[in-house]
């Protein structure tokens, strides 16, 4: 970033950026723990994930406030203004990802309360979830390094999760047709898979904001092929 006459200004921006990334770290760990709870059915962990969502929300509110402060006090321009815009949007996406993590925890609770059902799809969902977590991680890394190329890669990776989601859906439909007793559990798993797919979408949005910060171009709603140009 360029040198600013006011050192404090740089510090403000840097500290906001660092806190966005910390919020990202918290959200990452929320998803991981939610998925672990989905696998193990450990009650305490499920409740922990649900309870910790308020920390994510609190960080969103605090960061939004800080961004307004910077806009009002410093009147940023050009790159810094893009940075502030991108941060407010990133924070929104992160908060949504936090909600998806809580949703996964809730669904896991309902699956495990119902007792073990034979819908052996945990593995497939976990695979899709690993992809989504990796996307989130890489878009946060790209944000920390302001690396537009890495961000473009994340955007391309989203297609993989989408196709993974469709294949999980197909398998679940087969299960439900074969044995109607699995329907409630299968539906809960659909919700979890959908949450995972949404996490991928949010990670993709965040990668788009990184490109916006670095290049100043808005790449939302463009195809990956156009991205290459």
């Amino acid at each position, binding site marked *: 970033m360029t040198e600013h006459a006011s050192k404090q200004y740089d510090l403000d921006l*840097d500290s906001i*950026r*660092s806190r966005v*990334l*910390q919020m*990202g*770290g*918290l959200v*990452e*760990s929320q998803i*991981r723990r939610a998925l672990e709870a989905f696998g193990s059915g450990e009650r305490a962990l499920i409740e922990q994930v649900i309870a910790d969502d308020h920390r994510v929300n609190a960080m969103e509110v605090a960061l939004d406030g800080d961004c307004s402060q910077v806009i009002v006090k410093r009147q940023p321009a050009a790159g810094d203004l893009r940075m502030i815009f991108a941060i407010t949007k990133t924070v929104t996406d992160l908060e949504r990802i936090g909600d998806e993590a809580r949703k996964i925890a809730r669904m896991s609770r309902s699956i495990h309360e119902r007792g073990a059902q034979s819908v052996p799809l945990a593995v497939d969902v976990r695979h899709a979830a690993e992809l989504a977590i990796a996307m989130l991680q890489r878009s*946060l*890394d790209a944000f*920390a*390094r302001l*690396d537009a190329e890495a961000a473009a890669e994340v955007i391309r990776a989203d297609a993989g999760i989408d196709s993974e989601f469709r294949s999980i859906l197909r398998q679940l439909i087969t299960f439900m047709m074969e044995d109607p007793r699995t329907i409630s559990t299968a539906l809960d798993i659909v919700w979890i898979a959908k949450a995972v797919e949404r996490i991928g979408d949010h990670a993709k949005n965040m990668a788009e904001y990184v490109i916006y910060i670095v290049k100043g171009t808005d790449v939302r709603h463009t195809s990956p092929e156009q991205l290459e140009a």
Partner: protein
Amino acid sequence: MRQIARHAAASIAAIAAIAGIAGALSGAAWGWGVLAAGLGALLLHHLSHLSRLARWLEAPAAGRVPEGTGSWSEVLTALHRYERAASAREAALADALVRFRRAAQALPDGVVILDAENRIEWCNTTAEMHLQLDGRADHGQPLANLVREPRFVEYLAAGEDAPPVRIERGAGRALTLQLIPYGRQQKLLLSRDTTQAERVETMRRDFVANVSHELRTPLTVLVGFLETVRELDLDAQRRRDYLDMMREQSSRMQRIIDDLLTLSVLESAPPPAAERVRVRPLLERLLADARALSGERHEVSLDGSPTLDLAGSEHELLGAFGNLVSNAIRYTPPGGKVQLLWRESAGGASFAVQDSGAGIAAEHIPRLTERFYRIDRGRSRDTGGTGLGLAIVKHALARHQATLHVESTPGAGSRFTVRFPAQRTLPLSKGAPATPPAASPPPPPATSRPGGRS
């Protein structure tokens, strides 16, 4: 300095003298003209040297200090000397730095040097790998921006008094991170990969739990029957049945303990003396044992004609091979095929047992040799397995630098292959009898009697 002054004075004096002579010979105007020209030339000389020096200073290339004439030669020579000394010093420093970094690079642990604000100053390749950093690009980046695990961020904020923190990174890799302060507000972050250590610890815990469980099950049955026999008035037939069942359970416990002892011997004893193990009689004996165990229920055959012998312990090898053969017989339904195979190649020799049994699902194969690992809890115990058979096989083979490979197609059968490296094979000795002597074979080792497949 004085030399330069003398030099300057001499050149000005020379110019003045020439100008004086010219003035005396051709008139004052000529004199002034020559003086001006001389001084101009002197000035040009200085300016040209000055510009060359300035050009060099813009990009000071080592050993390329411009040379000069007149008073400049002094200065530039001195500068040349200074520059040479400086670059030698710099090279020595750079060398020391390179050596230091190489040492830090060679550490088996990841090392990240952090400044007072916890920004990355330097990291070695292990740390790059552990924490997915890029030493060059991430210079000056706050570490918490890239290693975002909340637990680690808290640890970083808490300072060095907190106990080291464990995080998971990437595909199930466990890292232990520790901050060590040094110098002026600088910090060293060490990252250690503890995945392996944790796995070993889990295995140890599981092992103790498994042993207790495996021993407690027959013991519970035994105690139950003991109570019954003691409390109830039983007729002779019932009593005998119960006592038989008690004996069965006690011998089961005994088998587990025997196998545990065998395992601990294999683990701790020095490697076996490399005696000649004659392969042909060994295979024939295995074939005979297999036929006896099968009792005509399977089609048992032997394929391969050994031209090599093995170096190692006959007792241990017979135990290991025997275990594989008895597994194949016990897990192949009647009417199936069990084939013993012996193959030789330039890279060594191999013994394999191929069966046409139920096969093993792929996810179980890597865990088969774990102690007490069971694919199907009920079945293996019914067939009398202790759950230690393949663990013993693996250990016995490792003592012979041999490896066990398992290929299996569920529904089609399995093949257990033991591969021996070339240095474990011996050419057939001349005069060795091709058939085993009729003498009674040595008592079968503990491992040759039926053990669990897993």
